[in-house]
């Protein structure tokens, strides 16, 4: 999914916050019907994105070399599997 404004992948936090805002607007009747359908659609997209995002199991661990060296990826999955 792309964000219509920035075309960058939203973060968990931005997607979650936006979803909560949309739901909040619905709960407080802040949206007229003309805008509510696109907002509703956006809310469903965000929920779908978040669910897909939560399916990611691995965490990427980058080891920072001391002395401000380049980061390099050293390991990922073995310590992070689901129970």
């Amino acid at each position, binding site marked *: 999914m792309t964000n219509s404004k920035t075309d960058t992948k939203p973060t968990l*936090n931005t997607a979650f916050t936006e979803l909560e805002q949309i739901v909040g607007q619905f709960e407080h009747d802040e949206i007229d019907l003309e805008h*509510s359908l696109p907002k*509703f659609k956006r*809310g469903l997209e965000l929920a779908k994105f978040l669910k897909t995002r*939560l399916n990611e199991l691995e965490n990427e661990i980058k080891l920072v070399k001391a002395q401000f060296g380049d980061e390099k990826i050293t390991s990922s999955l073995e*310590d992070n599997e689901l129970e």
Partner: protein
Amino acid sequence: MILSDLNPNFETPVLPVSAFNELIGDHLAALGEVIVEGEISQLQISQGRWLFLTLKDENASVSVFAPVFKITSLNSLAEGMKVQVYGTAGLYAKTGRFSLTAYRIVPAGEGALKQAYERLKTKLLAEGLFDPARKRPLPRLPERIGLITGQDARAYSDFIKIIGERLGGLEISFFPVSVQGKDSVSSIIEAFNYFNQLKNPPEVLVLTRGGGSLEDLLSFNDEAVARAVFSSKIPVISAIGHEEDVALTDFVADLRASTPSNAAELLVPTRQELLAKISHLEATLDSSLMAELKDQQSLVNHYGEKLAGILDLQQNRREELVKKLTRQIFGVEQKIQLKDRQQQLKVSQLTQQISQKLLLTNQKLTNLERLLGTLDYQKTLARGFSITRTKAGKIITHKDQVNPGTNLITTLAKGEINSISQ
């Protein structure tokens, strides 16, 4: 340089003072790094830049010198405190004064450590480093995390394990540091400097290590480390030691976790928690839209009914108007008809009147005829009367009307007699 180098024949050389001092200095430097333990008997800071103290035990004392900026533990030091001084022996060439040049001074022994801890804690508290008001909220769902801990440490594996059990897709930048020992403080400060100078830094830093003695946790009670945590632009979670251990970094950090695992727990929610929240949000969204649509539907119905009412009303008014007009038109027609009838009546009345008059006239005429009949001079003539006229036709009723010799015509019942008067 040793004396034999200067003179292979072992003849005692004559040395200028400066050369002598330099020579001794070189010898002392060759000793390399030393760690000397003793009690601080005198502590002085000169010009805010130089630290001078005297270190002693029961039998001896030695001068210690250090640049202030090197001694990160400076504020936790006090006279009477037992310390370990890390440094090199040296001779100040100008005066020939011997001293220990220190780069690290740490409290030694439980009592000294506690004393140092309390001194620094009081100072930092007074300075406002622990102020709850300055603690920043942590990002709710951080995806980029900077981890500062020892490599191959239990704290590392605990944190990575627990966070991996909770959430995936995270990017963890791990900066390995020495969590204890002489390089510990500088490596931790380096880690903070590294993360804070990044153009795209992590959203949160986790400073952690497992439990240990007060001595083991020394770096996390170090003033420079505490200040590095305080001045970090990135919010910091500090999780040092076990539940009961509270390092000074724990007080300074934006959030304190009791253990490395607890830091992971405080940092990110579990997938299950998030999924439940998302499902709840979805359900709320769904029901809100349904409610919204229902509201709109009833609004449409309401307006529809209102509109229908208005239309009905207008229809009724129109019908009323048509009826009224019809009535008016009908009334006019009736009036016209009435007038027509009245006129017809008048005409017939007139006709009747005329007829009657005609009849009367006729009757009168008949009577007159009859009267005239009775007055018919022929009949009178028949009875023997006659009519005398002049030639001109003028009827003579008196003798004086005629002169003698006038021709007269006398009409009888039958025929006429012409005569001449005498």
